[in-house]
């Protein structure tokens, strides 16, 4: 009797264990249960909003700006002149700004391709890229070539010398023109792959994976987002050149080192992009959709905590305010008054705490989905 009973328990244990493991793996489903109640925050709807109204439109815009960049670099290389150079510089600026809107979405195909590393590693390795041009043999797909391509490398070719000199250089050196064309078309082909993937089924995969496991879309996206904010925006654009990690300022490590007045516009574009993503603001503007902020508000109705969403949004504003008085050239800013850049860093850092500590705790998301047991 007792023995039978225990056998039954063991059987139930094993079956439930199997059932739970299999559920855990696909991590899906669940939302269709929420029909009758408004209590459940619809993660699937948030993912769809992210994909359809923020990520994909941002990529399409970036993609079309790259078409412009490729076209104007072909025009310039075909006929180097002050006019074609100025058009090309303008295209480069447009594309670089559009890039700031997609850089944080290093997920899916972009993650596979390591898109950010091939697009925007700075400072660019000028010796390396000049070697590439003079030798004529280079494989841009290598990880060792990250800092010899992308926007910073193109910038060096276009902006490092004055206008006349640049036009003459390109007119007298076919290899340099070819290198420029290779760089722009590489940006384009990588981006085409990412866009094709989003449009060719990844969007559905992304939205369907609406569970709460470590590898679900929300968890991964939030991790990618915070990683971008911390490493690329806070450290890359501001902290490193301001000397936070080195003890003395490193003006040569600023983004847009050669083009003069462009670091601040790039920074502000990236700041807006991260703030809009947090608030669920569609790429083309308009009213906010389901977002991390809405999710925090929803959880707050269960928990009655502080209005974390508002605190984070306010902190984005504080950062923008701290950036307002800065020189358009961060290179010049570091040289003239680095303390203003340090002050901006402090404001950015405050949101690292709010996003990474407070928001992740509220959303119950682990940093970096480390696969470890708890107790």
């Amino acid at each position, binding site marked *: 009797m007792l023995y039978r*009973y225990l056998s039954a328990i063991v059987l139930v244990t094993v079956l439930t264990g199997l059932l739970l493991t299999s559920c855990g793996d696909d991590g899906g489903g669940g939302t269709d249960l929420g029909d009758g109640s408004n209590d459940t925050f619809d993660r699937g709807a948030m993912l769809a909003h992210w994909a359809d109204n923020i990520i994909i439109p941002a990529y399409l815009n970036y993609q079309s700006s790259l078409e412009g960049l490729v076209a104007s670099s072909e025009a310039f290389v075909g006929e180097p002149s002050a006019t074609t150079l100025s058009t090309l510089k303008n295209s480069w600026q447009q594309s670089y700004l559009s890039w700031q809107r997609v850089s944080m979405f290093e997920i899916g195909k972009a993650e596979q391709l390591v898109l950010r590393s091939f697009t925007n590693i700075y400072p660019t390795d000028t010796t390396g890229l000049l070697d590439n041009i003079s030798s004529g043999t280079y494989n841009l797909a290598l990880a060792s070539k990250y800092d010899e391509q992308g926007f910073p490398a193109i910038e060096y070719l276009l902006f490092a010398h004055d206008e006349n000199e640049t036009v003459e250089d390109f007119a007298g050196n076919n290899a340099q023109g070819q290198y420029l064309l290779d760089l722009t078309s590489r940006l384009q082909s990588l981006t085409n792959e990412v866009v094709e993937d989003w449009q060719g089924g990844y969007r559905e995969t992304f939205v369907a994976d609406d569970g709460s496991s470590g590898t679900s879309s929300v968890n991964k996206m939030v991790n990618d987002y915070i990683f971008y904010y911390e490493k690329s925006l806070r450290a890359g654009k501001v902290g490193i050149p301001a000397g936070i990690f080195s003890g003395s300022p490193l003006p040569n490590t600023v983004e847009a080192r050669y083009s003069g007045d462009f670091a601040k516009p790039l920074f502000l574009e990236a700041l807006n992009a991260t703030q809009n993503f947090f608030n669920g603001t569609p790429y083309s503007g308009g009213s906010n959709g389901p977002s991390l902020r809405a999710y925090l508000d929803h959880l707050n109705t269960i928990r009655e905590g502080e209005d974390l969403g508002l605190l984070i949004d306010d902190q984005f504003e504080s950062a923008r305010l701290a950036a307002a008085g800065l020189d358009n050239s961060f290179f010049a800013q570091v040289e003239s008054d680095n303390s203003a850049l340090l002050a901006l860093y402090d404001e950015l850092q405050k949101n690292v705490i709010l996003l990474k500590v407070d928001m992740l705790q509220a959303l119950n998301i682990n940093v970096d989905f480390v696969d470890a047991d708890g107790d």
Partner: protein
Amino acid sequence: MLASIIRSWAYGWIDKLYIQPKFHFSYYGFEWVQPISQYTYLLFIVCAISALFVAIGYRYRLAIVTFFLSFTYIELMDKTTYLNHYYFVSILSFLMIWLPAARYFSIDAYRNVRLRSQRIPRWTIDSVKLLLCIVYFYAGLAKLNSDWLIEAMPLKIWLPGRYDLPIIGPLLEQEWAIYAFSWAGALYDLAIPFLLLYGGTRLLGFSLVVFFHLMTSALFPIGMFPYIMIVSTLIFFSSSLHHRLLSGMASLGRFSKSIFDNNQSWKSRKAPLYKLQIGLVALFFALQLALPFRYLLYPGELFWTEEGYRFSWRVMLMEKAGSTNFKIVDQKNQKTFYVDNSDFLSSYQAKQMAFQPDFILEYAHFLRDHFTSQGHEQVAVYAESYVALNGRRSKQFIDPTIDLASQPISLLPKPWILPFHDQISGL
């Protein structure tokens, strides 16, 4: 009859491997326990083999000592991976060194008639029961605090995150359900030792054990622990049940267990040694009973400072996260810079370090030594640390004006932890 228990928990940790970062967090007094490069793998193999030998009862005493030492060494290598249930495995294996667990249904007893004995002294079984009771009861006591009972924290954070589970998912966002889980959890931990000890309620108790642990394994990523506990609690059942289980196993293996049924009672042949053995076990339990209360010796909120938090069966009590950055000051050359933690720590280590003061101090000393060896002089290390506990807004955690490089590593209270500015009442 202990064999059935030993057998069951031999699985699980065999394939667990360690990644090897540049720096490991040591337990106080055990700094000499470090991973031994590629031989670490060997250590795991030794641990696995000894676990197997314990389970089949082959050269039991040697196997259990080896298992205890190798498993504990693995645990001591890096406290980042500290889990209460690893600690449980360690101390249970320590206890088992002193128990005659290979006298029946084991290879040792099969090979050597003189070792066989069907009966063993009652205290040997009871000591394992006592250990399990301590685990449950202390875990229950620890839940008697205002965060758990009145705020339903941290379950209010954890449960809504699992809304996508089948059947119970939608419940997990209901406030009343979260409170029910909190209170039931505390009550369960406190009651289960008694339900298991008394014959009349034992079946009920065991059913609850199974239900509770399956529930926790569904809700939280806690690995093997639920299964270890479910099987371990089988020890509360009478010997007739275990005879049935073992007969079943024997018939599966197509042999008879009757050769072990010799009606012999085990007696130690060396009386003084036996006395020492009992003394050791008694001392072990005195320590186990006292250790969880050592937090009373420290000022400040236990959950905040974590002084005396480990080794106390405080299980699933906190959702705590932090962000801790270190400022290095070369005082001679007036140079200041911050550290990128990912240069030295794995992301798991960085995460654990961010909210545990002893980790922060140990890492600060490591940074001092590292940057001194890089040629910096009179290195001071300051922490900018923010920590959030159980849904409270994050607060500054470590006094940012204190040079951690000059603070000693010890078990004494750490005055540089900033006050909690809130209260959690309870045990």
